[in-house]
Structures are given as C-alpha cells and as structure tokens.
C-alpha cells in the first residue's frame, strides 16, 4: 500500500477542491440565470406562469437536494441518455439554486413600493421594461446580501454530488480515508477547506447586510 504523508493528503484534497469550486460557480451562475427568468415569470401577474413557478419552487425547496440528485441521475438515464455524475450534479444543483434565488429575489422585488410600478406603468413602460429599468436596479441593492449569503449554501450543497459519485472535495475525502484509514485527520481537513471557502462568503454577506441597514 502507498504511504500517504500529511502533505499528500492535503494536496490531493486541494486538487479536488478545484472541482467543488467549479461546480459551485456553475450552479450559482447558471442557477442565477434560470432564477432570473423564473423571477420574471413569478412576478409577471400571468396566472399560469405564476402557478408553474410556484410549483417549481415548492418542489425544489420541499424535497431533499439528495433526492433531486438521484432523480436527475436516474431520471435522465430513462431517456436512454448516458448520464455522468457531473451532468446530473450540475443540472440538479443549478435548478435547486434557481428555486432558492427566485424566492429570495421575489422578496426583494415585492419590497419595492407599489408607486414605482405605477409611475413606470404610467410612463408607458412594458412589464419587462419596468423590471429592467425601474424595479430590478432597486431590488438588486437589497438582494446582494442575501444572494451572497445563499452562495454559502450552494458551496455546501455541492458536497452531496459526492454521493452520486462525482469526485469533488467530499468524495476525495472519502477516497483518501479509505486509502489511509486516518478519518479524523482527513475529515478535519475537508471541513477546514470548506470553512475556508464558506466563511469569507458568510462574512461578506453579513458585512453587506450591515451596510445596507446603516444606509436606511
């Protein structure tokens, strides 16, 4: 059996961390784009669109992320398409993220006074233009802090991709543990790396929130 030094373990974990970061970034940005589209649908006032987004959000917020990963992993395969853990993980995490972001952003949009909608409607702006030029620029200011805060959940959520076999930080930890039989060390390091990824984001979110409250 190979002998693993502390540095071997750490460097292997750090290499896998790259995938945790990549998966987080993809889920966060793609989830943000999908979330923005859903936000437009959710606040459009068009009943079928609202009903669809509501159910979508209910499903992704009301079932375990792990189940969603399983469903995508085994569900896509039913169509005869070869599914890699990578594909299932990015898809599930993207949609999961989009549901939460839509809900966070909807709260921000709804906190914009009704008068802003009416004044812009009176100026002949369409719904999309109202959102684009009047509502979203104002909502974005309030949305930044909770959005950054949610990015922490995304990073942590990627850990579940390990369960369907995608090799990122947590999976690498499990593999290294099986090879070294040093679970205390390995999982301490894994936790420490996640902490280093997440804590700055949490801290930044809190900072932003404080600044926004002070500005009011």
């Amino acid at each position, binding site marked *: 059996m190979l002998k693993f030094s502390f540095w071997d373990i750490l460097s292997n974990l750090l290499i896998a961390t790259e995938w945790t970061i990549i998966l987080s970034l993809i889920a966060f940005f793609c989830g943000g784009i999908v979330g923005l589209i859903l936000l437009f649908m959710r606040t459009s006032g068009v009943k079928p669109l609202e009903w669809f987004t509501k159910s979508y959000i209910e499903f992704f917020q009301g079932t375990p992320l792990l189940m969603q990963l399983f469903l995508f992993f085994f569900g896509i395969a039913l169509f005869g398409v070869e599914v890699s853990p990578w594909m299932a993980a990015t898809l599930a995490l993207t949609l999961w993220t989009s549901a939460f972001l839509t809900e966070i952003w909807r709260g921000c949009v709804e906190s914009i006074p009704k008068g802003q909608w009416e004044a812009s409607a*009176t100026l002949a702006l369409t719904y999309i233009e109202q959102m684009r030029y009047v509502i979203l620029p104002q909502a974005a200011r309030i949305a930044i802090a909770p959005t950054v805060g949610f990015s922490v959940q995304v990073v942590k959520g990627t850990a579940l991709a390990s369960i369907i076999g995608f090799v990122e930080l947590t999976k690498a930890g499990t593999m290294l543990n099986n090879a070294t039989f040093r679970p205390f060390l390995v999982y301490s390091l894994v936790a420490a790396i996640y902490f280093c990824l997440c804590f700055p984001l949490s801290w930044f979110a809190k900072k932003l929130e404080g600044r926004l409250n002070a500005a009011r």
Partner: protein
Amino acid sequence: MPLVSIRDVRKSFGALEVLKGVSLEVEKGDVVAIIGRSGSGKSTLLRCINGLEAYQSGAILADGIEVGGLHANLRELRRHVGMVFQQFNLFPHLTVAGNVMLAQTVVNKTPKKEAREIAAEVLAKVGLSEKMDAWPSQLSGGQQQRVAIARSLAMRPKVLLCDEITSALDPELVNEVLRVVEQLAKEGMTLILVTHEMRFARDVGTKLVFMHHGRVHEQGAPKEVFAAPKTPELQQFVGSVA
C-alpha cells in the same frame, strides 16, 4: 371629438361598487377639476383613465383609444396620457435627468442626446434647470413633485392626470407646484386634476366636477358652480371646505 370621453363607467372592488356609472367629456384644452369627499371615487376614476385600474362596464376613450378593451393598447395610450401622483414616485436610483429621460429613451427610442435636451427644456419649464444632475433624495417635496411633472411632460402627453399632487406637501411648498400647473393650463395643456385646493379649482379650472358616492353629482363652470351649488350635497361640501 372629445379628447377623453367617459361613458357610464362602473367599477367595483369586490362587493364594493366605487364607480356607479360615471360619464364625463373632456375637450382639448379643458382643465377639469374633480372634487368630492374622501372615498367618493375620484382617484379610482383617474386611474381608470390610463388603465391602472380595470373597470367592469361602460367605456373610456382617451385620444381615440378604448382603454378597457380586451386588447387595449395601453402602451400607446399611456404615451399620450401622463399621470402625476400624490406621492411623487420618482425613481430613487436615477438622477433627475435620468427620471425625465427614461421613458423617452426606452419607450420612444429617442437618442440620449436629444432626450437630454428635452429633459432640459421641461425641467426649465418647472423651474428646476439647475437640478438636472441631482438625486431625488436631495430635493424638497415640492421640487420632487415638479420633477414628476417634468417627467410626464417629457413624453409630450395630450392630457395630464394629476391626483392630489399637492396633498403630500408641506403648506409652504404647495404654491410652487400649483404655479407650474397653472402655467401648463395657460399654455393649453389638457388637465384632469383631483384636488382639495378649492380656490385653485375655481380660478384655474374650466370645468368643475363634483363626485359623490361614485357618481358625477354636479358639474359646470367652476365660478358658477361654486357661486351657486344646485345640490344640497355640494352646498354642504363647499361649506365644509370653505
């Protein structure tokens, strides 16, 4: 043809009937002052005219466009029907110029440079040339309301709706706004204003409309109506506000 014609409009909020068959004709150049008790339906009527509220029956034609139609072209309508609100509703994330230019550039696709020239012109008209690059939060209430008026004027509306535009202002700021409106009236702008300023309604208005319980209860030339109200309700109302 009248610029705005309202025919037997009914409007309910749930079980509450707020407009119970309102009819009104507004000619080009008219300055219509709508008065009446709180809850008589003045704001609702105004909001129906530019499609902010939907009505259940009757018809409103503004500049030839049917407002309540199933496929009403609200965008086209609102390009020609401006509205100023009690609470100003300036866009806080845009400068004064940004507020005035927004609809021009987005809706009318006016080039930025030209839009800014128009902004300068309408801001001059409301006496705020030097505030072009200020932020709404830096302005007094009266100044904000004048920007809101300029914002509507920039669209070159054929008719301007004003809903109690001085009610949220400190008393000493009321006149600067009223003077702007008076000037617009002199220039021939068609105005429909809901107001509690009786003297202004009498002196500037060409037509007075008294609303009561969701109906046009009495209307006519302001000076005559004020001098000799026919209905007891208007007599009482005039007595209570005088």
